[in-house]
């Protein structure tokens, strides 16, 4: 007997099993005295729960219109507007944080020494001659390719060296990028849209809620 059996017995008492499950369980119940005993125990517990006396509420819980805590049913749009406004505000804050952290990140990148060529384990930061030779060495093991196209290594290394030279910052101006000012990761137009959305949706939800409450109060006073 496992907990699955208990679950089935409990559901059986409430008539929540399918016809096939019921038939299967009843076959087992006919053969298993332990299962029958457990069913009886669960029936007793359930029966006692149902016999617990019900009490009348000690007082009326009707809402008094004079109670200031009684407020009008909130229009359906209010939580939606509030949610959208909150999301927009959150995105705005995140964007502003990213944009303000960007110069710091750029400064730390500019201050760091130029990275080595290899992905770890190599002689990072070696002389430019060694770097220029690396692509040649990398394709060297494929001997058949070299044999079929002997000019290929030379053709491949030339553009790679050029590309490396273009990609590497000029040695005489390591802080050139910083002086130009780092580009913000989130464009200003998006920041503006998020700020407007946050204010607009938040404001609308506040206004709608306040308007409904006022109407509700004035209607109560009229009565």
């Amino acid at each position: 007997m496992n907990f699955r059996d208990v679950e089935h017995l409990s559901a059986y008492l409430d008539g929540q099993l399918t016809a096939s499950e019921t038939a299967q369980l009843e076959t087992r119940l006919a053969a298993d005295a332990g299962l029958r005993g457990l069913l009886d125990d669960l029936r007793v517990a359930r029966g006692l729960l149902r016999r617990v006396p019900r009490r009348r509420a000690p007082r009326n819980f009707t809402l008094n219109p004079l109670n200031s805590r009684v407020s009008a049913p909130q229009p359906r749009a209010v939580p939606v507007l509030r949610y959208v406004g909150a999301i927009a505000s959150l995105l705005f804050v995140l964007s502003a944080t990213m944009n303000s952290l960007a110069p710091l990140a750029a400064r730390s990148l500019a201050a760091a020494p130029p990275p080595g060529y290899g992905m770890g384990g190599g002689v990072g930061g070696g002389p430019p001659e060694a770097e220029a030779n690396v692509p040649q060495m990398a394709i060297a093991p494929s001997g058949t390719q070299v044999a079929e196209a002997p000019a290929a290594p030379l053709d491949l290394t030339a553009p790679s060296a050029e590309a490396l030279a273009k990609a590497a910052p000029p040695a005489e101006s390591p802080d050139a990028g910083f002086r130009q000012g780092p580009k913000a990761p989130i464009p200003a137009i998006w920041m503006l849209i998020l700020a407007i959305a946050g204010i607009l949706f938040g404001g609308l939800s506040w206004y709608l809620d306040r308007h409904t409450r006022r109407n509700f109060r004035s209607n109560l006073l009229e009565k």
Partner: protein
Amino acid sequence: MDENALIIEAQRGDLDAFNTLVLHYQDAIFNTARRILGDEELAADATQEAFLSAFRGLNSFRGGSFKAWLMRTVTNAAYDELRRRKRRPTTALEPDGEDPEGMDEPRWLADPNLSPEEATEARELEHAMEHCLEGLSFEYRTVVVMADIEGLDYTEVAAAVRVPLGTVKSRLARARLRLRDCLQGFEELLPAMFRLQREPSS
């Protein structure tokens, strides 16, 4: 009582319509809160909070069982009360289990026509059940109170506690099993009822 019409009126801000619904459901909501919290005063507070927040959030009701929806609000209110009580624990002025005159007065009982023996039996059962329910976690207690004491069906319980039907089945089975174990300790106190329940199945 045309419940749907009352709900629509109440959603438009008609407090009288809502109060009619309150009068209809307040016993069930109060009883649920009382069984979950195990305290009359806290249950009354939770019930009032539940109705206040139900009126405020009435537009979030999109059909289905209104009782189950109200049960959800009272479950939330009861949970808040429990958390508040944990933060600021209070000491009862009277010892536990000795309340011969207070809340057990006949005026509180739903059926005032009980004989003295029946009333005693009902009180003993209630004390035993309160003790055993207190031993259950909030999740199990909520499900067993709604299904077995308030008579909600599985679908309504699932809607009220916002869990899948399978979870309701599982929690209910586990809760009944634990209650059975706990109630066995009270078997001598409640022999008549145990015999009464066992007879039909044997």
